[in-house]
């Protein structure tokens, strides 16, 4: 079976797709204002016409490249290429100003690869093991799992949980539209045939992640980009020394990043912020942080790439996305007939192992291609924004149209692009809304099914041991903000 999977990956067509998406991902990641999630949303219409393995491979590769490439403008422009680099942008820029741009970029690259490989190893080992347990799950367990996932997205690492809850509820309401509910009753369709099928997720995602970013980019088109000068020679110089010196931070960053990736709703950007903070806290020289010190970049750089792979664990095993990228991926998996769930590891084992191999390959490919991207960074960042934004916008139009060959997709894209723009400008996070849209149907369906099985008795929800454990976890997540608030009052 491993051999068959290898044959799937080494197919010249698949390798070509991987290479093409790698270049695409590096470009999208390196241009500030274009994010890894946007790269995924834009890839979906193209993957529509591919076999399952190359389709998923293109997304895996493009996102791994994009998260690293986000470090490049951090060093040179003091602007994060993707939100995942924002945590250490000031630090990286300070290093460039001190003449250590080469070291900062090299560390970003090498420790991205290490973090990515660590996350991949966890994914390969943990996902099948978790699936063994999940095979015995019933609607009760799934209900609690979805609730837990939704609550994690709202309460962990968000400054304002109230706005997170609003975002989540709006997402769940969007999921209510259409015929696809346990009763089969057309809700909120107003007699419109396009609405009866429910709101298609891909145009919504293109709107929320691409159109809203373009609006933001257009609103800031006046601000000039100033590039710092950096001499870049051999980016690997001194990397071995760094690895030996910062063994513990690298491991800690990779482990924390993977864990945050696994948690639903929190992805690479939150992983980088938390790892940077942890790194400063445990560092022997915390006073150097912020002045151009490489330690935080090492730890957070490993962390954001490991989060990418970690997010695939709940996505593959339960169909619950670990971050906004896998929220889109789950849609692609369903389209490709690779329905996520514990049985995917038996029914589609070859395809899954092929995807694991692509993860390894993509992270290894990051080394040579990352160097090429660093070397050509100056040309990459000179791409004229006033031409780039409109072309991407036309690409978005075609992409949203292509899903159902209907102009209604473009309407959805525009509407949700505006909604996402206004939400983010007013401090409402977008990720919980996405999670709500993806999980809304699953939540309602498992609740109704569990109610039918339990004869309408709420006690049935906590009678099975795993269900009770998950329910306790839900209570703990709910108690967390209250406890934090009480602690703050005490001080």
């Amino acid at each position, binding site marked *: 079976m491993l051999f068959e999977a290898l044959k799937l990956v080494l197919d010249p067509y698949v390798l070509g797709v991987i290479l093409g998406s790698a270049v695409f991902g590096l470009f999208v990641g390196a241009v500030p204002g274009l994010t890894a999630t946007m790269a995924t949303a834009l890839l979906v*219409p*193209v993957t*529509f*016409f591919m076999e399952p393995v190359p389709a998923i491979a293109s997304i895996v590769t493009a996102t791994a490249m994009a998260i690293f490439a986000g470090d490049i403008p951090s060093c040179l422009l003091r602007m994060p290429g993707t939100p995942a680099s924002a945590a250490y942008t000031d630090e990286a820029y300070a290093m460039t100003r001190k003449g250590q741009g080469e070291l900062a970029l090299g560390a970003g690259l090498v420790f991205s690869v290490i973090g990515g490989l660590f996350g991949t190893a966890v994914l390969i080992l943990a996902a099948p093991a978790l699936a063994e347990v999940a095979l015995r799950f019933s609607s009760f367990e799934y209900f609690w799992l979805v609730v837990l996932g939704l609550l994690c997205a709202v309460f962990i690492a968000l400054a304002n949980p*109230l*706005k997170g*809850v*609003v975002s989540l*509820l*709006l997402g*769940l*309401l969007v999921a*209510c539209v259409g015929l696809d*509910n*346990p*009763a089969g*009753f057309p*809700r*909120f369709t107003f007699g419109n045939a396009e609405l009866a099928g429910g709101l298609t997720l891909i145009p919504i995602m293109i709107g929320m992640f691409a*159109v809203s970013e*373009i*609006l933001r980019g*257009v*609103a*800031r*088109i*006046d601000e000039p980009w100033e590039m710092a000068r950096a001499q870049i020679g051999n980016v690997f110089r001194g990397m071995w020394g760094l690895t030996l010196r910062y063994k513990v931070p690298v491991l800690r960053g990779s482990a924390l990043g993977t864990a945050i990736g696994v948690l639903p709703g929190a992805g690479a950007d939150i992983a980088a912020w938390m790892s940077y903070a942890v790194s400063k806290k445990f560092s022997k020289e915390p006073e150097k942080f912020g002045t151009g010190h490489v330690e935080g970049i090492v730890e957070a750089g490993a962390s954001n790439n490991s989060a990418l792979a970690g997010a695939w664990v709940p996505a593959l095993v339960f169909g619950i996305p670990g971050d906004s990228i896998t929220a889109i991926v789950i849609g692609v998996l369903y389209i490709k007939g690779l329905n996520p769930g514990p049985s995917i590891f038996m029914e589609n084992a070859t395809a899954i192992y092929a995807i694991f191999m692509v993860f390894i390959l993509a992270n290894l490919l990051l080394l040579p291609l990352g160097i090429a991207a660093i070397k050509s960074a100056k040309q990459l960042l000179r791409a*004229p*924004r*006033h*031409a780039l*934004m*409109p*072309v991407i*916008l*036309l*690409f978005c*139009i*075609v992409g949203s*149209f*292509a899903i159902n*060959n209907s*102009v209604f997709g*473009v*309407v959805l*894209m*525009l509407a949700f692009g*505006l909604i996402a723009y206004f939400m983010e*400008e*007013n401090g*409402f996070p977008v990720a919980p809304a996405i999670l709500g849209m993806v999980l809304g149907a699953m939540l*309602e369906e498992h*609740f*109704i099914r569990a*109610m*039918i099985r339990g004869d*309408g008795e709420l006690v049935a929800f906590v009678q099975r041991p795993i269900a009770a454990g998950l329910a306790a976890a839900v209570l703990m997540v709910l108690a967390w903000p209250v406890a934090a608030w009480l602690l703050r009052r005490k001080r």
Partner: protein
Amino acid sequence: MTGAALVALAAAILWHVQGFPEMPGQRFGPAWFPGVLATGLGGCGLLLIVSGARERGPWLTLPDWFRRSRPLFGVASVILGLLFYVLAADKLGFHLVGVALLTIWIRVLGGSWRAAVAVAIVATVLIHLSFYKLLRIPLPWGLLERYAF
């Protein structure tokens, strides 16, 4: 402001779901789930109104790009352009609308006329080749139907 809008939305949903049918023999019909969500949304809206009133900030703040011409025209042209595409693409066809929109957008965002037209035509042709030819997506031809290739 946002809070008030949320309360209004929640009220509208609650009123709308009253018309949903009951499921025979079950406590939870199709109105139940949206009803719970709308109730929660209304509650959050009220909390937002309360916290907003406590801060005593202005009711509505405009972002600063609203006062600069290029970003303002840029954002307006993006929104109006997309609306125009939705309304006109089927009649005029993807190719005409695509070239026109790209030219206007690039021009508004600060490109020269020559660059705008050149990029617009090249990009539209590339999208035609990759999406229409390679991926077989039926982009509408509209007025150019006779010259379809």
